[in-house]
Structures are given as C-alpha cells and as structure tokens.
C-alpha cells in the first residue's frame, strides 16, 4: 500500500492528480512478494535449512528422496513461520531500531495481523507436513523449536535478560537434530553434538553483531549483553564462547562419529574463529570500551561466523558422503 500511496499523487491543495499523470499507480507485485519473503527472515532461514539438511544427510538410513525433500521444506517453513511471528511480536522495537525499521510490518507494508496469520498457518502446515513425511518425533521437535523461538526467546527472554540469545539460541540449534530424527525416528549422539555446536556458536555470532548494533538495542530497550554488561565484557564473552565451541566442534571426530575430513576442517575453522575472536578482544577502544576501529574486528568476526557454520556442516556432509 505504501508504494501505491506514494505513486498516485495528490497536489498541495488536496486535489486529485490523474493517475496517468502521477507516477505508476499500481504497486509492484514483486515488491509485495519481496516483503512476504522478508517476513520469513530468508538469510536466517538459509542457515537453518542447511543445518537441517546436513542433519538429514549424515543420519544413517536411506530416506525416500521425496519425503526427505518434504522434511527439509517443513524445516524451512517452520523457520519462516518463527521469523514471521517474531516480526509480528517485535514490531514495536523493530520500528525503533535502524537495522530493522525497514522491515515490512514496522514499515507498514504488511499488516500486523496478516503477518501473525501467515506465521501461524505456516507453523501448523510445517508440523503437519513433517508428521506426514517423517515421524511424530521429528514433528514434535519441530513444534518445540517453533514454540521455543516464539515463546521462550521472543516473548519471554529477549526483552528481559542479556542471556536471551544464549538460551534462545537453542531454537536455532534444533534443525540438525530434527533432520536426523526425520530419518532415524530417534536421537543419537551426533545430532546432540550438532545441537551443542550451534548452541555454542550462537552467542559469539550474535554478540559480534550486537557490538556494532548496540545503539539500536539500547534505543529499543533490548537488554543485549553490550547494553547491560558493556562492550568490553561482550568482547570477553565472545572469546570465551569461541574457546568453548572449538573443542566441542572436534568431539564428533574424537568420538569416532565423524572422520578426518570433518576433524581437520573443524580444527582449521576453529583456529580461524578463535583468531577472529582474539582480534575482537584486541580491538582498540576508548575508556568507555567503544571501538576506535568502527568495530571492524566485530564485523569481520560476524561475517566469519556465518562462513564457519556453513563450512563446518558442509565438511560433515562431505565427510559422510566421502566415507
């Protein structure tokens, strides 16, 4: 609607300007489609789908390709549903933050109720699809992941505690476990380790972002770690969580659940992540802890953290396919 109002004009006296004189009156359908896709948080969705797909690929067994594809689709729909419901609930604080103020709901391009309905319908459909294509356990875990993200992270923790993304990060750790469960109808040691890896990866990933977006969070009153504990403490916590992540990422090989390709990749990627975390720790700062480098190390660490998870899971899939 915003495009429509902006394009068909009204002159200063309030008189209508003929539609063919004003800019194009019909808003772009593609722009609206793009808004609905944005509601699904596509970048987060991509990472979630990838970890879910790898969980499915490394699980023992040979699922029917069609059912496996439907299971991955269900994971994608669930992730999108969680994103849409999150954008509906957070529309007030999203409007206050520069990073999120352009989202479709605070931007007024999609109504709040429409976003909520979209999310709820997608969530129900995703769980139903998983139930039919895979099994009850995978469907139950999928439902738990959606409920966890919406109620535990979005509604309960996000606006209350700086530990929001530590505990809430569990929601993002579910997909690999769900992918595995969709094939095996059980929970094994490897998917639990994958869960732990994503769980420990989330704080350094998200806190790197919050280091250069903390003013946004402060403005919106979201108690992210840099806002509550300060920038220096956040840099220390990023380093500590990265140190905890590296040995856990090596456990699949150490326990004989994955091979050399994964182990070597995990070691190299872990060393890389640690180096970035040290750079964040050594970022020159003023007496308030504010970065003097415009948070260049935090931005680099944030970017690397995304590659890290993609490459780590890709290495696990390659390891299983080659082995």
């Amino acid at each position, binding site marked *: *609607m915003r495009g*429509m*109002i902006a394009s*068909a*004009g*009204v002159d200063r006296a309030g008189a*209508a*300007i*003929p*539609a*063919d004189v*004003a800019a194009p*009156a*019909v*808003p772009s*359908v593609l722009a*609206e489609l793009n808004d609905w896709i944005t509601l699904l948080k596509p970048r987060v969705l991509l990472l979630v789908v990838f970890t879910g797909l790898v969980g499915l690929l490394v699980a023992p067994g040979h699922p*029917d390709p*069609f*059912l496996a594809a*439907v299971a991955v*689709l269900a994971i994608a729909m669930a992730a999108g549903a969680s994103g849409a419901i999150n954008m509906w609930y957070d529309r007030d604080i999203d409007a206050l933050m520069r990073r999120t103020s352009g989202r479709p709901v605070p931007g007024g391009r999609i109504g709040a109720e429409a976003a909520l309905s979209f999310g709820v319908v997608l969530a129900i*459909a995703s769980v139903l*699809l998983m139930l*039919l*294509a895979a099994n009850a356990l995978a469907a139950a875990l999928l439902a738990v992941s959606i409920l966890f993200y919406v109620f535990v992270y979005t509604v309960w923790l996000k606006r209350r505690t700086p530990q929001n993304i530590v505990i809430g990060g569990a929601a993002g750790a579910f997909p690999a476990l769900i992918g595995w469960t969709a094939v095996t109808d059980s929970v094994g040691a490897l998917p639990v380790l994958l869960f732990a890896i994503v769980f420990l990866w989330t704080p350094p990933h998200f806190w790197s972002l919050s280091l250069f977006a903390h003013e946004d969070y402060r403005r919106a009153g979201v108690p992210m770690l840099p806002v509550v504990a300060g920038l220096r403490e956040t840099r220390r916590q990023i380093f500590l969580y990265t140190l905890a992540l590296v040995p856990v990422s090596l456990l699949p090989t150490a326990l004989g659940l994955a091979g050399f390709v994964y182990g070597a990749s995990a070691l190299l990627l872990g060393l890389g992540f640690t180096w970035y975390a040290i750079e964040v720790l050594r970022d020159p700062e003023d007496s308030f802890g504010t970065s003097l480098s415009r948070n260049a190390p935090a931005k680099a660490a944030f970017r690397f953290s995304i590659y890290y998870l993609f490459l780590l899971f890709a290495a696990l899939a390659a390891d299983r396919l080659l082995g």
Partner: protein
Amino acid sequence: MDGSAPPRRPSVEEAAEEAARRRRRIRNWVLLASLLALAALFYGIAVVRMAANHQLPHFR
C-alpha cells in the same frame, strides 16, 4: 467533433481502488496456488508412504 464529452480520467481514489482490487485478486490466486501445492504434497506423501508400506510392485 460529435459533441460527446471526452472519457473521464480516473481519480486517484478510483485508481487506488482498482490497484487494491488487483492486489486482492493476485493474493487470492497465490493463496489458491499454495493450497493446491499443499494438497499435491499431501497426495505425494500418501502415495510414497503407501508404496513403502505395501511394497507395491510398481514402486519397488
């Protein structure tokens, strides 16, 4: 010059209403396509599962 008035140009309100109607129409088509896709998925899942459970010769 037949003396008839030239065709009236649509006002902004009319253009906006027409645009909104067009969007609604597109949304309805998208909704229909989504429902059909979901039905096709359910159908496909049912066929694959039945084939697996009953080992139909065709699907072996």
